[in-house]
């Protein structure tokens, strides 16, 4: 495998949600999403039900991948922050810990400066959580104590999905 599998546990999931919930309030944002670089939605807080979160996650990752490609072409490692300005709503997209994408949607009740400031602080906290998460997953893998559900899966279970 090219990169280790991303695994999320209850404990880290709670910690992450506490951080982005706080960011939502402090940045006066409408919605905040955390997306894996491969386009999988990790978590979202705020008015999430108003949006097609799956599509949003996939397009955000595509956007980061495309601008990452652009960065490499001009000799940059990556563009760590993207900002999209709309008539009413704006998107602030940033890379956290080199691996996950933090998406903040905000309108005129907030400002780019405020969002940038708060995102910076939250990013540091999220990086610590994700580093811990990676370490935990690696340790579990090494010691062979993964609570991976697939070990007990039978061929029948898989076939049943398609019946």
């Amino acid at each position: 495998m090219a990169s280790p599998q991303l695994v999320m546990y209850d404990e880290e999931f709670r910690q992450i949600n506490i951080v982005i919930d706080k960011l939502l309030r402090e940045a006066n944002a409408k919605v905040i999403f955390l997306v894996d670089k491969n386009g999988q939605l990790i978590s979202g807080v705020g008015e999430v039900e108003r949006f097609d979160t799956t599509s949003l996650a996939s397009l955000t990752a595509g956007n980061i991948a495309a601008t990452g490609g652009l960065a490499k072409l001009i000799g940059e490692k990556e563009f760590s922050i993207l900002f999209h300005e709309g008539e009413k709503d704006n998107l602030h997209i940033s890379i956290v810990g080199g691996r996950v994408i933090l998406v903040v949607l905000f309108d005129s009740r907030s400002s780019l400066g405020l969002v940038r400031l708060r995102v910076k602080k939250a990013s540091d906290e999220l990086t610590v959580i994700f580093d811990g998460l990676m370490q935990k997953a690696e340790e579990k893998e090494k010691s062979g104590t993964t609570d991976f559900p697939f070990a007990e899966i039978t061929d029948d279970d898989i076939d049943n999905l398609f019946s």
Partner: protein
Amino acid sequence: MSFINYASREINCKIVYYGPGLCGKTTNLQYVYQKTAADAKGKMISLATETERTLFFDFLPLSLGEIRGFKTRFHLYTVPGQVFYDASRKLILKGVDGVVFVADSQEERYDANIESLDNLRFNLEEQGYDLDKIPFIIQYNKRDLPNAMPLEELRKDLNLTGVPDFEACAATGEGVFETLKAVAKLILVDLKKGS
């Protein structure tokens, strides 16, 4: 690279449809979209040019049901087939769990198939994957056309490692779900092995 979320009890996997330009990758996804119940699918996104050629990717999220209390979700992507979109193709292969190679059965697309398959292997290697080690399915599309090459000939030149392969006519849907099921199954079996 699948994403296992113990908090929401979900397993997410990524399937990429690869192949030469106009071989029917988008048509495969469109058929799956049309025939899937509304509660099992999300919105299909196509980033295409004005002439409906794929520019970046198509995306279709599918929910297959539960395995041992875990929801299984598959994210289907296509790549742009045209040769000059190679930079975009590489990006879409990132984090892939399984690949479907859609071959165009028409005789005049023979070289394009070979070139695209080589390109797939090369681009995967660049991302650190070995095509022979990841879940991989071949679909021979456009079997209904009069200029389609004999199956055995295609198989001989495209399916060198004997992976599961299917004949299809994506426009009418023939072979589309067989292909999807086969790759999804390979991915799940692969995950099981990985444990």
